[in-house]
């Protein structure tokens, strides 16, 4: 095990990692920007080093400063948390070149996943379904044939396109020829390349993801799925496990796909495979996140396995002592991300001094935060300030527990989203589990 570890992050995730290290007897070094002098992770770590001014590119994203801090304090490993440099292949390489273990996959694997197209092709070759589409459209006859195979509705997209231009939605074969010609003309005019491809349009889909944990000895564990469909502008607000709308057969298929994909990449560490789930329960691979995720506690609650500790242990070469059959999901867990944003003013970020803080408590209620009473919340960084996680035998009971916990959560001094989430959890679309990724945008439209 590493004797000392540098936590290259801030906020609640830095606190989460330091806690895991304390339990394992690993010494910790916190890094902080000038705006974070008074942050909790700084006080909680064994040592702390200021790495630069408030803007993240000058501090938390400043690779040389982080490496110097790690080497000067005699660290053996670097934990990047999530965000910042957690999926930066160059940083992973730089750590290894300096004799520091980067807690995550190798730079090579991160790079491979960063290229979404190539990653999709790799998993498709391993037999995992990806969003259906066709790229080999020689002429309009071939394109028509391909379109019928893919099925409607579909999208025609420009091969060299971007920014939403050159995209046509087609609902039936009658409209196809016209839309295809138009799209080709527009593509040529905009991008100088009339090349097009078609992709099935997935509507009313859920965002479902599978947590994996792989050691350096070839063992792969797939944990139960998380439903992260409650999103506002692609930002997740509520996550739960298991997904309320997945049948056991569909779940088995999802786990099998996750396993195939992980083997295709020869993955190491913790990671998350993201899928889109259509109304029929078909899962399509989207991408893989090569890091710890914000919502990892949901999986920890249902599996009883401390993912952060195991992430560090497998990085240290410890073989996983359990097998797939030992990974059992029990009950239901829900997480609400409390953001310092004002829901009444289009979720504008809010900063200020925390005048009063009361954390929710009781059995199977977890509150992950870096807040403390009297803390001055800086505006420079992500607005996530706390995560409330609950666990109960059934989904119904978990929703009740979350409602009670949210009402008990008092954070005064900044605007935050807890009451908004409390409202969401009481809406029929959440209660029956049918919500999809466009739930909040449709809801906003209807307000």
């Amino acid at each position, binding site marked *: 095990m590493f004797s000392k570890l540098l936590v290259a992050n801030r906020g609640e995730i830095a606190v989460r990692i330091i806690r895991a290290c*304390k*339990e394992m*007897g690993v010494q910790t070094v916190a890094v902080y920007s000038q705006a974070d002098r008074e942050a909790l992770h700084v*006080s909680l770590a064994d040592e702390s080093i200021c790495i630069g001014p408030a803007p993240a590119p000058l501090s938390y994203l400043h690779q040389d400063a982080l490496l110097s801090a790690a080497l000067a304090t005699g660290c053996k490993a670097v934990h990047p948390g999530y965000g910042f440099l957690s999926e930066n292949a160059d940083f992973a*390489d730089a750590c290894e070149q300096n004799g520091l273990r980067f807690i995550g996959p190798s730079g090579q694997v991160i790079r491979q996943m960063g290229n979404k197209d190539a990653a999709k092709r790799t998993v498709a070759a391993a037999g995992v379904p990806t969003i259906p589409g066709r790229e080999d459209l020689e002429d309009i006859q071939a394109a028509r044939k391909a379109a019928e195979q893919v099925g409607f509705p579909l999208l025609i997209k420009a091969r060299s396109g971007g920014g939403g231009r050159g995209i046509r939605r087609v609902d039936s074969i009658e409209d196809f020829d016209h839309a295809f010609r138009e799209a080709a003309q527009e593509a040529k005019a905009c991008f100088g390349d009339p090349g097009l491809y078609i992709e099935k349009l997935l509507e009313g889909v859920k965002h479902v993801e599978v947590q994996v944990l792989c050691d350096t000895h070839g063992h792969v564990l797939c944990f139960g799925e998380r439903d992260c469909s409650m999103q506002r502008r692609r930002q997740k607000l509520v996550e739960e496990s298991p997904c309320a709308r997945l049948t056991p057969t569909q779940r088995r298929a999802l786990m099998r796909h996750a396993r195939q994909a992980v083997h295709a990449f020869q993955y190491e560490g913790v990671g998350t495979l993201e899928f889109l789930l259509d109304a029929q329960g078909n899962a399509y691979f989207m991408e893989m996140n090569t890091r710890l995720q914000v919502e990892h506690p949901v999986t920890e609650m249902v599996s009883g396995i401390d993912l952060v500790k195991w992430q560090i242990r497998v990085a240290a070469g410890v073989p996983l002592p359990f097998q797939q059959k030992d990974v059992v999901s029990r009950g239901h867990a829900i997480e609400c991300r409390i953001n310092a944003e004002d829901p009444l003013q289009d979720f504008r970020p809010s900063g200020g001094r925390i005048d009063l803080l009361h954390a929710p408590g009781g059995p199977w209620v977890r509150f992950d935060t870096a807040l403390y009473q009297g803390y001055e919340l800086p505006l420079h960084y992500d607005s996530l300030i706390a995560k409330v996680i609950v666990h109960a035998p059934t989904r119904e009971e978990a929703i009740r527990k979350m409602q009670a916990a949210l009402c008990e959560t008092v954070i005064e001094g900044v605007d935050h989203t807890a009451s908004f989430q409390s409202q969401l959890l009481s809406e029929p679309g959440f209660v029956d589990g049918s919500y999809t990724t466009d739930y909040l945008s449709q809801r906003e439209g209807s307000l």
Partner: protein
Amino acid sequence: MISKDLFRRPNLPLETLGREGDKAAVPEVSCPGCKRRLPVDELAANLYICPRCRQYHKMSARARIAMVLDEGSFEELDEALVSRDPLRFPDYRHKLEEAGKASGEREAVVTGLGRVEGMRCGFFVMEPGFMMGSMGAAVGEKITRLFERALRERLPVLGYTLSGGARVQEGILSLMQMAKVSGAVRAHSDAGLFYLAVLCDPTTGGVAASFAMQADIILAEPGALIGFAGPRVIEQTTRQTLPEGFQRAEFQLAHGFVGRLSPRESQRALVGLLLRMHTGGAA
């Protein structure tokens, strides 16, 4: 701000394993060649050559003895001979202690008598874990005594050189070891006795400039850095960029400083053959 002192530190030892009842975590090293981590025991089983990229890792003196000499044939000499701190060099005593702990050796060279494929010889091997095999008065004295012993017993000498050079902490006393050992090598040579050296990574400085290059036959391990001043020093002094592979064993072979490259897998057989061919009366 919450004062650091407010949180007490849990008095927990560093965990050494995953869960109760598991085997302890396997110690690993990072390969400088391919940057991958590999278990130490796997590396040791492969003669300290990376199984993925064939990078040669440094071998401790004891691992060399096990690799080259006939089992149980090694008889160590002068094991208690160690360097003191004649110049009262700052921090030197502490460094010696640390080096001893890190390597398990008392000095940067191990000398003795042993057999290779039945051929008896004087044997010395330098220890990378002890200040990277640097040569102080004790190292020079041990090697000198070995050559003198070999001369008395009319034995060939097989030496494994691995050193950053003379030990700065002993100043001029280190440098004069070059002359002293060279004298003993000369006397051994004048008596018609055979000296075989295997140059390991790195063989530089005062060691390269004396007994490493005085052998009758000079072998080198693939990829070993061999030279007087290292490439970084030369680049900084001459302000020129040096060619790829400069001063590596392959480069020195092409320029006539090394007789042959000797991969570890076949090294014992080659060394044994050379000792047999060059030891008077044994053939």
